[in-house]
């Protein structure tokens, strides 16, 4: 594979995405909501509203905490109601929601890169270059996966700063991230980025337009929402081990999807769809 060509394809794809508002606007707005607006809301609310006024809601939260594994419940020992609320919402409830970011961004760029290229009728000239099929494929993977991971990491960093800063009056120290966030950030997030892209590759071979691909890959968000529901109901808790195990499973699915994707991303197949 030719790394110079891979980099050129990735840079070109990102330049094109930058010109497509439908693609990049959600990629900017959603991280701002997740990394700034939501943690600010969850950390400032208990500081602004006296606990007595929301005793009912906090009681419900304690029921949810009670569903967490015993070891995890240790985090809440000796914590007041407001601190418990902040920990539960920012460190547990929002954790799986963050996976929407890499999934969404990689699938948006992937859809624009794979289907958009065909839709805009630019694929044919690309196929006439000396690049091998694998180089073209790798370039498009890099274009969609690497920025998705970087964007997620930037969002995580902002989130960590916002949570610690906004909850400083309650904790008086840097308490976040908890241990389970490390595999979430550095193992599961890259795997989910790749999942969004590899699913897009398969979807792209069956749809004609960027919007069709975008909408279909959007349905992958259901997987993340299942994690949120699982976490809320106590069925699945994203701890260190479970996050690592889930990440490993997603990597395995990625490998299988990429294997299939490489098989479909061949000049002979691609030229037939032009």
């Amino acid at each position: 594979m030719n790394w110079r060509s891979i980099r050129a394809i990735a840079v070109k794809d990102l330049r094109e995405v930058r010109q497509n508002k439908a693609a990049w606007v959600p990629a900017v707005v959603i991280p701002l909501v997740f990394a700034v607006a939501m943690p600010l809301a969850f950390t400032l609310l208990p500081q602004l509203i006296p606990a007595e006024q929301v005793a009912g809601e906090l009681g419900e939260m304690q029921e949810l905490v009670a569903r967490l594994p015993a070891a995890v419940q240790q985090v809440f020992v000796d914590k007041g109601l407001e601190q418990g609320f902040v920990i539960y919402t920012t460190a547990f409830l929002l954790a799986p929601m963050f996976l929407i970011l890499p999934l969404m961004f990689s699938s948006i760029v992937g859809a624009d890169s794979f289907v958009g290229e065909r839709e805009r009728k630019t694929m044919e000239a690309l196929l006439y270059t000396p690049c091998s099929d694998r180089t073209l494929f790798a370039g498009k993977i890099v274009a969609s996966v690497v920025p998705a991971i970087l964007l997620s990491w930037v969002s995580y960093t902002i989130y960590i700063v916002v949570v610690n800063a906004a909850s400083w009056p309650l904790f008086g120290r840097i308490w976040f991230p908890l241990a389970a966030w490390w595999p979430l950030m550095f193992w599961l997030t890259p795997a989910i980025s790749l999942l969004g892209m590899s699913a897009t590759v398969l979807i792209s071979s069956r749809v004609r337009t960027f919007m069709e691909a975008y909408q279909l890959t959007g349905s992958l968000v259901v997987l993340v929402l299942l994690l949120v529901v699982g976490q809320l109901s106590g069925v699945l808790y994203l701890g260190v081990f479970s996050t690592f195990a889930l990440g490993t499973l997603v990597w395995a699915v990625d490998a299988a999807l990429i294997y299939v994707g490489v098989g479909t991303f061949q000049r002979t197949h691609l030229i037939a769809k032009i």
Partner: protein
Amino acid sequence: MGATVDAPQDSVIDVSNLHRTFGAIRAVDGLTFDIRPGEVFGLLGPNGAGKTTTVRLLNGILPPSGGFVRVLGMDPAQQGGQVRRKTGVLTENPTLYERLSARQNLTFYGTLSEIPEARLGGRVEEMLGFFGLDGRAGDRVETYSKGMKQRLALARALLHQPPLLFLDEPTSGLDPEAAQQVNALIEFLSHKGQTIVLCTHNLTEAERLCDRVAVMNAGRCLALGNPADISRRLWPGTWLDVVFWQAPSPAQLELARNFPAVEQVDLGPELLSVRLQSKEAIPTFVRQLVEAGASILSVNPRSHSLEEVYFAIQNNRQDGEA
């Protein structure tokens, strides 16, 4: 693919009994031709004749279903990347990145065509200047006219200085002025010795630009060669139109009919059309008429345009099928 046929040493492209099927459809059906260095070779035919499929086969984008292909001494099916390193292709649609600038487009394709980093910038600027795009090089391509886009696409095809250039319908959809600009560029390249494969159904363009043509239909090559040679095969002999100042006498007409090389005579009021076995017979024929006292105003050997040749070939095919 059979490897027993050796490509002639002087051929840039050598194709023998090439086939490509898509299910039951024979897109290319037993094509045989060769292209020599510096030649402008036309692939002529209606839409669906198999021209674009042939270009894809020659560039290793599609593998053939059968037959022999060598492009610059390489097998495109096995060495597609190496072949494409030495070919430039202008596709039927410009297929440019409209959201990017001309400079970004060329830089991108130059990188993919493996132009060394140190030379790439200079080469891009050189091509932008040559094709008259340097003034708008930083503008998004979507703001360009069709003619500018086509020139940019041509610049892209030539960026890596390929010894072999494929032009698929280069003037399709262009206004006459833009088409003339593109044709002038093709003529310029041809005079510089560039080998060009020109796919077109614009017969005037082909007649002006091509050294040899292959007339295709339904994936088959119906005729191959220099347009004049094909014309001679279609209409053997040479037609000569003789215009008289005064109507020819019966004796002069008799002389014309009995001239040894004359095969056919058509007589109009002041025009005598004769078919001679060859053009070498023309001077003797005219001299004998003049010596017999004929008052001749003009003598015109009749030539058939490529358009006439093309339609005669296509009609012969239809008649054959009927």
